[in-house]
């Protein structure tokens, strides 16, 4: 009988958590009323959507040359910006790793990486279009910066997790700093670095379709033009092509990643 109060304490009520839950639900309802999120508005929207979808079907591939041109430019933007990003991220990652580089250097490099990551790539693309003009160069520059930020940050974190025992053993042989990185660090992080790079290439393929909307080259420009001219059947053709390309890239990079393990 005396054990009952002890048992009842096994799952004590968490009042702060319950309060947060109630507040969250209350605020959600308030925000919906503020933004006119009503059922009537939703049903009107659904009707518009069905008309829009009907105009997209069947997809129109008659202007496939225009489509292919845009797609190839997008793939080129993705490949070039990934390659540049990977090459730049390798030294930056090494310089940002706290277990390798002196503290002032890591802070400086981390600041630069944070700067690369701070703005969304579409905003960066707009800035480059304004600065260096319309076209693929602006898209490549924007996506390179995004790639550097992503790969360098994760690469630095991977380096900070290496086993220092292996590094110690290489240092004990009398190896110089460059050889310690080559034999003690890089073998431990190489497969993860390749994984990050592949992932970023995947992302860049997707992102390169978008930078065209702001004028930075690629199929996004074609897509945006088709939207503006209400060529919804051509829009559907472009979207289907992009989806097919991303699926293909996903499969290929998945295979490569599995082979790396």
């Amino acid at each position: 009988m005396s054990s009952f109060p002890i048992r009842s304490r096994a799952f004590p009520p968490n009042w702060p958590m319950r309060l947060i839950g109630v507040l969250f639900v209350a605020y959600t309802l308030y925000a919906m009323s503020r933004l006119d999120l009503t059922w009537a508005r939703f049903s009107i929207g659904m009707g518009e959507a069905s008309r829009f979808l009907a105009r997209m079907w069947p997809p129109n591939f008659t202007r496939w040359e225009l489509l292919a041109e845009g797609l190839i430019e997008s793939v080129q933007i993705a490949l070039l910006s990934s390659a540049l990003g990977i090459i730049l991220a390798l030294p930056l990652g090494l310089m940002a790793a706290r277990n390798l580089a002196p503290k002032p250097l890591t802070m400086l490099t981390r600041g630069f990486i944070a700067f690369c990551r701070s703005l969304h790539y579409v905003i960066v693309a707009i800035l480059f279009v304004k600065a260096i003009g319309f076209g693929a160069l602006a898209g490549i520059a924007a996506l390179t910066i995004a790639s550097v930020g992503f790969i360098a940050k994760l690469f630095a974190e991977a380096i900070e997790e290496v086993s220092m025992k292996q590094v110690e053993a290489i240092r004990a042989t009398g190896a110089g700093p460059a050889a310690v990185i080559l034999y003690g660090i890089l073998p431990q992080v190489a497969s993860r670095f390749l994984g990050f790079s592949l992932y970023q290439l995947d992302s860049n393929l997707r992102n390169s379709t978008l930078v065209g909307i702001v004028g930075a080259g690629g199929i996004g420009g074609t897509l945006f033009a088709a939207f503006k001219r209400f060529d919804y059947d051509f829009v559907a053709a472009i979207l289907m092509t992009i989806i097919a390309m991303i699926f293909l890239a996903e499969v290929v990079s998945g295979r490569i990643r599995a082979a790396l393990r």
Partner: protein
Amino acid sequence: MSDRAVKSGLVIEGLVKEYVPGKLVLRGIDLALPAKGITAIIGPSGTGKSTLLRCINRLVEPTAGRILLNGQDLVPLRGRALRMARRRIGMVFQEYNLVERLSVMENILSGRLGYVSFWQAWLRRYPAADIERAFTLLDAVGLPDHASQRADALSGGQRQRVGIARALMQQPELLLADEPTSSLDPRTAVEIMELMTGLTASTGVPLIVNIHNVDLARRFAQRIIGMSGGSIIFDGPPETLETHHLRQIYGGEDWL
């Protein structure tokens, strides 16, 4: 015998190490070892055995004292001079510390990193003599067919054999072994000790080995050093190590 007169072997004078100011891990170690033979250092965990070994090849920075290897003081060395000294000292580790994702051959050849250029190391263009020596060492440690296997595919005993080959690849003037058998089963431990003592004896390299197992220390070493609380409290041949010494080194009574 004046310490300065000793031009061969290892001489340690007044070696002090504190990781945290005021907390001494090594309390003024004085030690002179000849340029041959096997010395075993025994003592409880945390008594500074590993720190002592790592001060010798400067993986740990000594706080004070001198360490003379064949007449050269290692403590003031910096940069390139320090790396030149390190490549003369081989080290075998408790957890083998192989580069897991490199092949056995690459691990063994990493013992030459103090000798070859960065480009040679990167492109694996090691001198033919180094590669030949690596194969000879692979045979000597009993892994003739494992050259292209990745280090993480090996068993513990095999890994330690590679560790020994890597250290000997340096053609060291001194071999340090930090608990080389503590992660191994008893039989493999004996095999590794036999291999290490055999190879160092045949090449005339002095060996200093930190070891937990007093029986192995007695069996393989010509000299035993007992440490406790950061000081040397026994130094002599294995025959003279008696029960009361062990009580003094490890403390307590009941375990003996």
